[in-house]
């Protein structure tokens, strides 16, 4: 043991002789280890972000959404000027009545309407939904109550508004109990939801949702008051769409039956929508698995990029050590003359590279631990200099700014171990060539 300490001490002494050179050599390993840890942390953070999003959708949920079919198909299938597509109330009935694994189902109908209160007006998404909507979308109330079953049955004109809507319509008043106008009808505000971070788009089949400009009313009320026909005036042209339901969120009794149930849902809908595929089935659990796969690929790609920098660092070490061996040929000769065996010389040079790579690795690990802070800096930089306000709000921008690197603690010993291994690999050739020197030649070397 004391011998190892001695060898390491002597190695440190030799390395300290050329502080700048040793430092620069070490830098390669420092950056290599740092980038391995940082890349994995970013990958891990991205995956955690994706997982969180998917879990917000609910791991036991299956979401069926209406999708506008491609243009050509719609023209050939329907001659009328009213575009009719999407999920039907009969679909909802069939699904909930035939599939025993479904415990609850929440139909949703969405329309865009102007909301008015006295002189204030704003455009909002009016969501016709049931009492389950609150839980299924992880919304919380800041005041009042959410919609109830009796609201549905009595077709009451009641509305729950999101915080942003409440703030812009009721600047100085308590919204509870006030009447707001949606379209042509008046509704009584019974509750206000708290702000909720918008969900990001996932997998292309589910667009992102901003929950903060919503108005919730009972779905039966919506159907009764607004009907299924949705007429929009857009830049002079008029489009009319006939949609019964925009979305059905189905909750399955346990995780294991999610995938078979999703399959059954697809088959059922296939039969009731034989001509066009005007719906999409989104299974968060599937997305979770996809996200997992993406994470794997992400980690491999980022990891290999980082590994390349480690290898480059290793080559740097080998380069310097070869130069060092040439420079210290005389010293090697002296040591050999004074009784050092070949093994001793190998040991000496190998120890130097291991100490070099090891301390580089250690510093790299410390830098790696600071990744979250570094990333905050990068986010700040991007926000202020790269992305201007508008693009920062885009999907990609939001994903980037929400990303929090999570250090994978297994990556610390792994990255450190790799750096030491690279130290050994890149040190072994110079060390052996040092030991193979003929002592007489080495002593004569100038």
């Amino acid at each position, binding site marked *: 043991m004391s011998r190892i300490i001695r060898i390491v001490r002597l190695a440190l002494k*030799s390395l300290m002789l050329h502080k700048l050179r040793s430092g620069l050599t070490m830098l390669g390993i420092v950056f290599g280890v740092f980038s391995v840890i940082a890349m994995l942390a970013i990958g891990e953070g991205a995956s955690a972000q994706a997982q969180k999003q998917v879990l917000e959708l609910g791991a036991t949920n299956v979401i069926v959404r209406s999708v506008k079919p491609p243009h050509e198909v719609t023209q050939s299938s329907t001659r009328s000027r009213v575009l009719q597509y999407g999920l039907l109330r009969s679909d909802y009935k069939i699904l909930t009545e035939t599939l025993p694994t479904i415990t609850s189902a929440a139909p949703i109908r969405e329309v865009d309407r102007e909301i008015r209160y006295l002189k204030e007006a704003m455009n909002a998404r009016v969501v016709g939904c049931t009492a389950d909507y609150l839980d299924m979308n992880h919304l919380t109330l800041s005041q009042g109550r959410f919609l109830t079953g009796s609201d549905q049955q009595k077709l009451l004109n009641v509305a729950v508004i999101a915080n942003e809507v409440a703030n812009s319509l009721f600047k100085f008043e308590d919204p509870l109990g006030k009447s707001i106008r949606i379209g042509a009808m008046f509704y009584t505000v019974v509750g206000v939801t708290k702000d909720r971070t918008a969900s990001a788009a996932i997998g292309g089949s589910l667009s992102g949702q901003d929950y903060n400009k919503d108005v919730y009313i009972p779905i039966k009320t919506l159907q009764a008051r607004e009907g299924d026909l949705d007429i929009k005036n857009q830049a002079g042209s008029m489009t009319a769409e006939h949609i019964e339901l925009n979305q059905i969120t189905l909750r399955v009794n346990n995780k294991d039956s999610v995938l078979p149930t999703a399959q059954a849902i697809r088959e059922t809908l296939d039969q009731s929508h034989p001509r066009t595929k005007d719906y999409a089935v989104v299974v968060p659990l599937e997305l979770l698995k996809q996200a997992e796969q993406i994470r794997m690929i992400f980690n491999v790609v980022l990891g290999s990029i980082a590994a390349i920098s480690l290898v480059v660092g290793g080559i740097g070490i080998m380069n310097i050590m070869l130069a060092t061996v040439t420079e210290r040929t005389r010293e090697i000769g002296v040591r050999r003359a004074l009784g*050092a065996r070949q093994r001793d010389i190998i040991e000496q040079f190998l120890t130097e590279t291991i100490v070099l790579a090891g301390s580089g690795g250690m510093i790299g690990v410390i830098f790696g631990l600071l990744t979250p802070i570094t990333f905050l800096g990068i986010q700040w930089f991007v926000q202020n200099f790269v992305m201007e306000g508008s693009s920062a709000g885009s999907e990609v921008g939001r994903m980037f700014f929400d990303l929090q690197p999570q250090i994978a603690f297994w990556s610390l010993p792994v990255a450190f171990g790799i750096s030491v291994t690279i130290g050994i690999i890149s040190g072994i050739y110079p060390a052996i060539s040092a030991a193979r020197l003929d002592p007489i030649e080495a002593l004569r070397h100038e």
Partner: protein
Amino acid sequence: MKLAAQVVDLTKFYDLGSVVVKALKGVSTDFPEGDFVAIMGSSGSGKSTMLNLLGALDRPTSGQYILGGRDVSTLDDDELSEMRNDMIGFIFQSFNLISQYTVLENIEVPLLYRAGYPAIGRVEREWCMELARMVGLGDRMDHRPFQLSGGQQQRVSIARALVNDPQIILADEPTGNLDSATEAEIMDILHNLNSEGRTIIMVTHEPGIAKQTKRQIVMKDGLIESETILQQAVPAS
């Protein structure tokens, strides 16, 4: 008379492909304990080859070199290293100190490579300090080689040569890089060591230095040309 070392019909040929250089063509001589020998000769006479063989840095082509009761010519590389560590103390013309080490650490270097790697403890450190004091560097143990004069550096290398209490001390032109004043100081130290009973073999081409020894061996063309005994070797009592 007890022998410190002995060479018997030693030859060394270098095969350079087209020609075979016969650097030593059969040299025999005895080195009794307490001897102080100067090996002289012009360049190409084989004195460097002789020194390399005596220093166990190389193996002879034929012949025997007996050191400490073992025939060096039959040893492998590791055993040669052990031999150099244990039996031989080197003093070089250009001092050859390790630049990143202090005086004391330089003296310790041979201790690092002792067989079995025993720890360097208090006793060894005391011994190194004593050697430093003996060569007059008691107040400079923490200095680095570049902070020392040539004469002082050579004293360090003498102390280093003594640290493992060697059978023979090999000095390769120990005063070649020094002015005459320091040359005298170094020679004084070597005389003192010899009078303590240490066997010293010195290569030199300065007759003035050679005259201060007990025996001169003059080499020419790979053979001993002449041998002059100035004084009988006196082994330590």
